[in-house]
């Protein structure tokens, strides 16, 4: 990345692995449970968070010197809610179909702890450009986990990927269903998302011992 200095590049790459918002910081778990029953929903949510977190971090960073510290959390909440509502209104007026797909996610984005977490931990103390990179990096790290979880839950729970029947038809008994395979409906329920996230954390920590806390 010629555009970015080494320090800036780390802002993007760190959240992918060693400082992932979901598996290491344990933020954004609620939305990771709620909407990963389908790969498509995971992708839509990832893109929305990318947009809101990137932009929100910049706005908060620009305001960081004038925000009264006593009410900073409320100010952050208002900024993110305003951004999301503006996007929602504009989409409703000019891209109605898209807005219908996204409307479910609006509430989830506003309450997503990754957004508040990054505002609080990073944007309040750093300049706009670095805050933007941090936002994008964390959103991508969040996206990576969401897409992995969404992939396995949809594949094992419904036998489809992005709606395509990749494993055959469970009712007509074609593909792998012909040899007795059954979808695991349990994968569609939220607790399984937590278990999949747990497995990702396990894999990640056994590959990188530095992440294991000592007690």
């Amino acid at each position, binding site marked *: 990345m010629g555009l970015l200095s080494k320090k800036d590049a780390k802002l993007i790459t760190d959240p992918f692995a060693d400082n992932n918002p979901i598996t290491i910081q344990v933020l954004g778990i609620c939305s990771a449970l*709620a*909407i*990963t*029953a*389908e790969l*498509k*929903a995971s992708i*839509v949510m990832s893109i929305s968070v990318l947009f809101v977190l990137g932009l929100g971090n910049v706005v908060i960073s620009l305001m960081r*010197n*004038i*925000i*009264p*510290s*006593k*009410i900073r959390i*409320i*100010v952050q909440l*208002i900024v993110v809610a*305003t951004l999301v*509502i*503006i996007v929602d*209104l*504009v989409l*409703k*007026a*000019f891209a*109605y179909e898209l807005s*219908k797909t996204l*409307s*479910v*996610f609006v*509430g989830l984005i506003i309450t997503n702890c990754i957004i508040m977490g990054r505002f609080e931990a990073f944007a309040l103390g750093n300049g706009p450009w670095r805050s933007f990179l941090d936002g994008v990096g964390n959103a991508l790290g969040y996206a990576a986990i969401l897409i992995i979880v969404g992939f396995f*839950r*949809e594949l094992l729970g419904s036998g489809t990927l992005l*709606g395509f029947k990749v494993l055959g038809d469970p*009712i007509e008994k074609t593909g792998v269903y012909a040899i007795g395979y059954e979808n695991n*409906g349990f994968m*569609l*329920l939220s607790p399984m998302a937590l278990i999949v996230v747990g497995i990702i954390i396990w894999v990640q920590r056994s590959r990188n011992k530095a992440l294991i806390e000592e007690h």
Partner: protein
Amino acid sequence: MSKRTDSNLYTVLFAVGMVLVVGALLAFLASFLAPNIDENKRIEKQQNILYAMGVNENDESSAIFVSTAVAEQEFQKYIKKQLVIEGGKVTEDEKAYLIDVKKEKSKAKNGGVRRLPLFVGEKDGKTFYVAPIRGKGLWDAIWGYVAMDENMVVQGAYFDHKGETPGLGANIKQRFFMDDFTGEHLLDDTGNFKGIRVAKGNNDPKNEEKTDYEVDAIAGATITGDGVSAMIKSDLKLYVPYFKTLKTN
């Protein structure tokens, strides 16, 4: 943080200022975009009604409306009559599709007479009666349009929702769920209203049995499914007297 931003006066002024700025911005934007949004909603209603009676661009697996550009035109072409049923009285009203079902429902709850819209459409020589329904899902409102023939046999259905869980309850607007309703009977042989239940384990996942008053439920979406059964039962039942008059004429 500098000292200045810690004072109480500054905090209060900042809060007031922020509320004013954000409030004004959102209010301005909302009223500026309102005509566009309303128009989109109006077109969507027309698309929904047309969809239910089979005027759509569906491909093999996904539900696709007629395009927004031609929705108005197609609506005029296929919908022959828009009726409003009020008590026992039936009148024609060109704006019946704009009737707010939510408002009518709460009016009925408070003892008023509910205005029931019914759209009579014609396609390939067949007559369709399309009725709107509305109810509650798990998180928020769910609604839809059901197209029936004169015997109250479902000819097509469209469902939508405000905030059901993506991948679970939100799937009521997927083809695999909506298409199951086509051909289902709402009345039994003697003309009593039975409704259609979204049932778990109905031993008919391929939905070959059309007179069992059941369709197969979606796994993990029990409450949304129950909401669909409930709104079919409560709202379509109100149209039974009208369909009876069709028979006697």
